[in-house]
C-alpha cells in the first residue's frame, strides 16, 4: 500500500490503483471533472489505464461559481 496525495490530502492507494478507480472509490462524478497528476493533465480516455504510482500528486478540479 502506498500513499498518494489527492487535492492536497494524503490517501492510501493500492499499487495498481487507476485514476478511474480512484474517482469511483472517492465518489467523484465523472462528468465535468478534470484530473492532473504531478502537474500534468490526464485525459479522460486515459483514466482507466493510468495507474497512480507511489507519491503521485493528484488534482481533481471542477467548475464552480467565480469570476
Amino acid at each position, binding site marked *: 500500500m502506498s500513499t498518494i496525495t489527492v*487535492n*492536497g*490530502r494524503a490517501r492510501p492507494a493500492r499499487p495498481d490503483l487507476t485514476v478511474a478507480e480512484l474517482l469511483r472509490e472517492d*465518489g*467523484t462524478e465523472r462528468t465535468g471533472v478534470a484530473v492532473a497528476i504531478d502537474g500534468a493533465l490526464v485525459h479522460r480516455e486515459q483514466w482507466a489505464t493510468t495507474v497512480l504510482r507511489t507519491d503521485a500528486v493528484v488534482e481533481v478540479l471542477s467548475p*464552480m*461559481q467565480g469570476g
Partner: protein
Amino acid sequence: MTRVVVIGAGIAGLISAWALSDDVDSVVVHDAGLTGQASPVAAGMLASAAELADGEEALHALAARSVRGWPELAGRLRDAGGVDVGLRDEGTLLLSLHRDDDAELDRHARRLARLGLPPARLDARTCRRLEPALSSAVRAGLRLEDDLSVDTTAVLAALRGALRRRGVEIRSGAVEPVRTGERVTGVRLSSGDVHPANVVVLAAGAHSRPLAARVGLEVGVRPVKGELLRLRTHTPVLTCTLRAQVDGVPVYLVPRRNGEVVVGATSDDCGFDTRRTPRAALDLLLAATAVVPELRDAELVSHDVGLRPGTADNGPYLGEAAPGLVVATGHYRHGYLLAPATAVAVRHAVLGTAAWPEAVPFRPHRPVDQKVGLP
C-alpha cells in the same frame, strides 16, 4: 401500525423524530456517524434577518416564523430532555470596522427596513457601551434585538435525552432507503438486512443526495464546508452575538454563558473535504481579534469543521418527495433556526396536521429543480 425510520441524527433528524414520536407507533433513528456532520459544530444563531440576502424573502418569512417558535421549543426541550439549551435573547450587533463596511451596513439596514424590521443604528460609543470589549476600531453598528441564539451541543443532548425517555432508539450505522415498486418501504442496513417502515424521513444533511439517488430521486443538496473556532475566556466578555466584515472576511462571534465564544465561519464549495485549514484559522482569528482584541488571550478550545447541506436556492427541502419518503434536509446555514419549521413540516407530511404556508416554497420538486440536465 405506523413505523417511521429517520435517516440522520443531526438537528433535522432528531427534531423530526421527536415531533413524530408521540403520534406514531414506532420511530427509529439511524446515523452513519460520518465526519463533517454540521449540527454538533454549528454556532446556533437563530437570526432570520442578520444573514438575509436580497431575493430570499420567502426564506426569511419561514425563518422568522420558525424563530418565534423557539422559546416554546426551548422550554419543552428543557422539560423533556432535562437540559437547559441556553437560549439567549440579547440579540445581534452588526458592526462596521472600515469605511467600506459603513456602506454595507447601510445597505443591510435598508434591507431590514423594507421587511418592516428597521434596526437601530448605533454610533461607536453606544456600541462600546453595550459591549465594552469591542475594539476602538468599531465605527458604527446595527442592533437586531429580536435575534436569538442557542447552545447547539445542549440542544442535541436535550433531544437525545427526550427521545431516549420516549423509547426512541438512535442507532449507529449507515442505512439507505429502499423501494418496492413506486413506494419507499424501509431502509437497508450495511448488513443487508431490510427494516420495513411506512415512512422514511431523509434528514442526512450534506449526504442526502446520494441516499435519495438510491431510490431514483434527485434531492439537490451539495456539501458546503464551514470551519469555525471555539474560544473561551475565564469570564464572559460578550453578551450579544457580534457580526462584522474584517478585511473582507465575514465573521460572527456567538457568546455562551460559560465564557465560550464560537467564532465562525468560512464557507467553501469543496465537496466532502473536512480538513481544518490554517487559512481558516488565520482568517477567523485575525477577524475575531480585530473586533474583540482581548480574545487574543483566550483559550483556543477547538477548530471545528462541518459540511452544510447547500441547495440551489439556499432553502431547505421539506415535505413528501415520494410515496413513503419525506425529506427534511438542505437546511444550509439554518438548521437550528428552522427546527420548529421542520417539525411542523414533517408532522404535516406524515400525520396530515396543519402546514405553514411559509413552507410551501420549500417543498421538494420545486421549480428550481425542474431543469433539463439533471438525472
